């Protein structure tokens, strides 16, 4: 399979994943609790030095994810992505410090990733942003996240269209060098287009009164269920932190 086919296939999968991420599972709950919980568990996970504790945490989080309605397929897809990046650090660690450290690094990243997948896949993104805002995250940071999320769909779609239109005009076989040349020129054009598009998306938001602050229809009110969840997650994070050292 040549480079541009690989890229097309990746973009196509990315489009599917992004489309799915728009239809989040409706699990309810206060998004502020979910964000705080994800943060606490992540901090606990990265501080753990025993791989068995991390493995147990990963199993627990996976169980919660499955109960929340996230499919195994989706979980595996997320883990595969995380594994790719963790491997960059973990593979050299196998040779330098042994397999246990490598395993620890991989489990840390996968447990943290699962935690955030759980948040993102069960909470609409605008509510996550609103929760960050309620937790006093700077507006500039939230505005950038918000723009990125809105704009990434268009960017991926444009990249896909460009590659497809290129392919429709290619006759015969291209060499590896030709593919690389085509991809680099496509990347250059895409950069120019993406700047224009980011401008347009921002203008479309500003045109309807957006001034950097996220507003949503839902009101945040802590129910008993939310307090219980917050206490449980804090207890879990504390247990992981203490037993894992």
């Amino acid at each position, binding site marked *: 399979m040549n480079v541009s086919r690989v890229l097309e296939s990746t973009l196509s999968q990315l489009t599917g994943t992004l*489309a799915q991420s*728009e*239809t*989040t599972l409706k699990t309810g709950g206060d998004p502020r609790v979910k964000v705080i919980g994800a943060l606490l568990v992540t901090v606990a996970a990265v501080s753990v030095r025993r791989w068995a504790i991390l493995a147990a945490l990963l199993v627990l989080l996976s169980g919660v994810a499955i109960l929340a309605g996230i499919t195994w397929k989706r979980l595996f897809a997320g883990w595969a992505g995380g594994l790719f990046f963790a491997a960059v650090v973990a593979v050299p660690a196998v040779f330098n410090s042994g397999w246990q450290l490598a395993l620890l690094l991989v489990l840390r990243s996968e447990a943290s990733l699962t935690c955030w997948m759980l948040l993102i896949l069960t909470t*609409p*993104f*605008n509510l996550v942003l609103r929760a960050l805002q309620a937790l006093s995250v700077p507006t500039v940071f939230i505005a950038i996240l918000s723009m990125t999320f*809105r704009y990434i*769909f*268009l960017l991926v*779609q444009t990249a896909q269209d460009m590659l497809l239109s290129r392919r429709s005009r290619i006759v015969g076989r291209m060499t590896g060098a030709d593919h690389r040349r085509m991809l680099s020129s496509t990347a250059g054009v895409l950069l120019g287009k993406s700047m224009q*598009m980011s401008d*347009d*998306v921002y*203008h*479309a*938001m*500003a*045109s*309807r*009164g*957006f*001034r950097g*602050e996220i*507003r*949503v*229809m839902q*009101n945040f009110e802590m129910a008993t269920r939310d307090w219980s969840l917050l206490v449980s997650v804090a207890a879990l994070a504390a247990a992981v932190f203490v037993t894992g050292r």
Partner: protein
Amino acid sequence: MTNSLVFEAINLHYSYGKIAALDGLNLNISQGERIAFLGANGSGKSTLLRLLDALYFPSSGELRYQGTKLTEELFEEESFAFAYRREVALVFQNPDVQLFCPTVYEEVAFGPLQMKWPKEVIRVRVAETLELLKISHLAERVPHQLSGGEKKKVALASVLILDPKVILLDEPCAALDPRSQMQIIDFLAEWGNKSKTVVTATHDLHTLEDIADKCVVFEQGKIIASGAPHDILHDHDLLKRSNLMHSHRHRSVAGHVHQAE
């Protein structure tokens, strides 16, 4: 805000770097007027719409809205910015850039939410606006997954909920099938009962008489003509000069080829 002149452009210049998009434009738009901007690609129509929506500000010259000169500083004041955004709305040519919320419902509610309307009022207005455009059944759908015609209607709903006094439309029928085109045109023709100001940038000469009472023809950032749609549509030399019409060949049913305009 009692001036019947809604917009007043005085020697308006706007450039993208060294490329002039608008070059010394003078134009008045009155309340309740339905005006169409005609011109080839790059003639400055879309740029002018963005200036009218106060997304861009003039490089030089003046743009006034109901007598008030529009400046970036003025839009830093929240009260003025919200009042203006409520009264003047822009529907973008590409609905994909305008539809960025997870559901159609939230998309339509986006503007009022930004302007801090009470949530009860927003709920009522969203329901009414969706009903007005006959898209209530799309409320929970993801905007990106809609058809071109549906996206355009949602984009329209997302600004009509604000009940603007002025609506700016950039190629409202571009890339739509004939049925969707006619639905949008019919809606715009009836909307506001002639009390609203409708400014449309378009290439589409077929729908001109339905959407405008006055046309302004652009060429290279300048106005080269203006008048009633009927007069503009019958000035073939003008239309050819501004790349809105050209001679081309038609193949008839009998297989003969003839020149047409």
